[in-house]
């Protein structure tokens, strides 16, 4: 089963990180990524720019284009992983390894993806 691990945190906090801190967090994530990738289970990974860069398009009679993220929440969607796991247990295990900086990781099964993982899938990272 393909799982999405979705990363949330307060942007006020993340934006207060020094460059060194940010680099250290990214290095931690890289290490976990390398581990999952070594098992051929890692799909696309993305870190998103701050929500201040977001534009939201809502359908209606005419499309409404809004400056800002889809939802104003205290914790913003910062990025996501796609991971191929045997079980929810395994996905939660990875999420724990990724969530060492406060914030929260949401683990959710993927319903559709254009990515196929497995034996041939993700060695390219």
């Amino acid at each position, binding site marked *: 089963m393909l799982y999405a691990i979705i990363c949330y945190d*307060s*942007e*006020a*906090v993340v*934006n*207060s*990180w020094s460059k060194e*801190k940010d680099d250290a967090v990214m290095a931690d994530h890289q290490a976990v990524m390398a581990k999952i990738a070594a098992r051929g289970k890692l799909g696309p990974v993305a870190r998103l*720019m*701050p*929500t*201040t*860069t977001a*534009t939201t398009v809502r359908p209606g009679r005419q499309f409404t*284009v*809004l*400056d*800002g*993220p889809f939802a*104003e929440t*205290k914790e913003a969607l910062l990025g996501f992983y796609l991971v191929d796991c045997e079980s929810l247990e395994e996905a939660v295990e990875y999420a724990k390894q990724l969530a060492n*900086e*406060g914030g929260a990781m949401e683990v959710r099964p993927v319903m559709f993806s254009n990515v196929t993982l497995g034996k041939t899938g993700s060695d390219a990272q």
Partner: protein
Amino acid sequence: MTQPDLTWIDTALTGARPQVVGALLRYFRNLDTAEEAFQEACLRALQKWPVNGPPRDPAAWLIMVGRNFALDEARRKTKQQELPDDEVISNLDDVEAPLAERLDNSQYRDDVLRLLFICCHPELPNTQQIALALRIVSGLTVKEIARAFLVSEAAMEQRITRAKRIVTNADVPFEAPGAPERAQRLATVASMIYLVFNEGYSASGGEVHVRVPLCEEAIRLARLLLQLFPAEGEIMGLLALLLLQHARAPARLDANNNIVLLEEQDRSLWDRKMIAEGLALVDKALRQRRVGPYQVQAAIAALHAQAQRPEDTDWKQIDQLYAVLESLTASPVVTLNRAVAVSKVAGPEAALAMIEPLAGRLDGYFHFFGVRGGLLMQLGRNAEAREAFDRAIALANTAAEAAHIRMHLDRLQEDGATATAAPSSTRLATGSPRRTD
């Protein structure tokens, strides 16, 4: 046993500070009370959070705790003293509302804006506005601010105390502002944040030419403002401008702290992540088609950031953007900057003709003489160039600026000695506050 890493608390407290102090200021209408209540809430967070983990909404937690503390204090005092005016402790009912009270975003928004706005008191000189904002909004210590301004801690303490007294007596309404008032506050605050950045980008005195912490703090404040007002094109432009300028910081000084001009910078040192975010914001802002000075400046910075090599720079478009900027904010400094673009597009003679009329108004401006000297040098008018450079040195704000001009003078000296032709490849110094070095 090793100490557990508690830096996350520090980061959370710093991040929440503007919101919390802003809200407490609304409740108690007194800056000292608000700051004291915030301090107390932080102390309690340091006790509770390591045990209980972070609250779901740290800002709301701190506001509640700070509010209760200040109320207890007020009650304690009233037992010994006469009751304070209702004015002093406003919204008593509101204050006693249960912890679960929803603090909606729009209220936070005006709280933070108000907090920033009171630092922009017109009676305060720019440097004091900056110092006050760094103390009250950013929560930097007096020591940190003193270091950033290269003055003694005692002097800075005095400056901030004096500034605080002025804003405390100022009459800033605590009701939610109307739309025109909000827009006006926003513009004032934006220019203050720009000042914080400029103070860091090109220090106004002393040995240090770039003060990175001030630049980073300005970026943090601009981000905060944009999060609160996500649809404001000019705030997008402001943040984009700061990011694009600051992205070049690692390349702006060499190992000996000498200024490296834009054309000579190692572009591989530029911070690509900051540039990407800056470009994204420029794109987003320009979609609105409501142009403003920050957006135009950001667009200019974006063109520099996008040029792989100096010779790839789209000077023609930069010249056009400066023309737009001139029409939005007629200022001799803008024209001076435009002249640099004009020198690339139409040659030094045209640029010189453009800046000559500015001589009167920019008589005491370092960059005017730097640019003028550079143009004259390109034209082979070395004696006049030397004169301009001498003036520039006399007006230099930092040691690095003076050293940079001295380098030009040395080149002229060499040229004079060997009687070579006019140097055509000499780099130009460009003008602040939108300098491109």
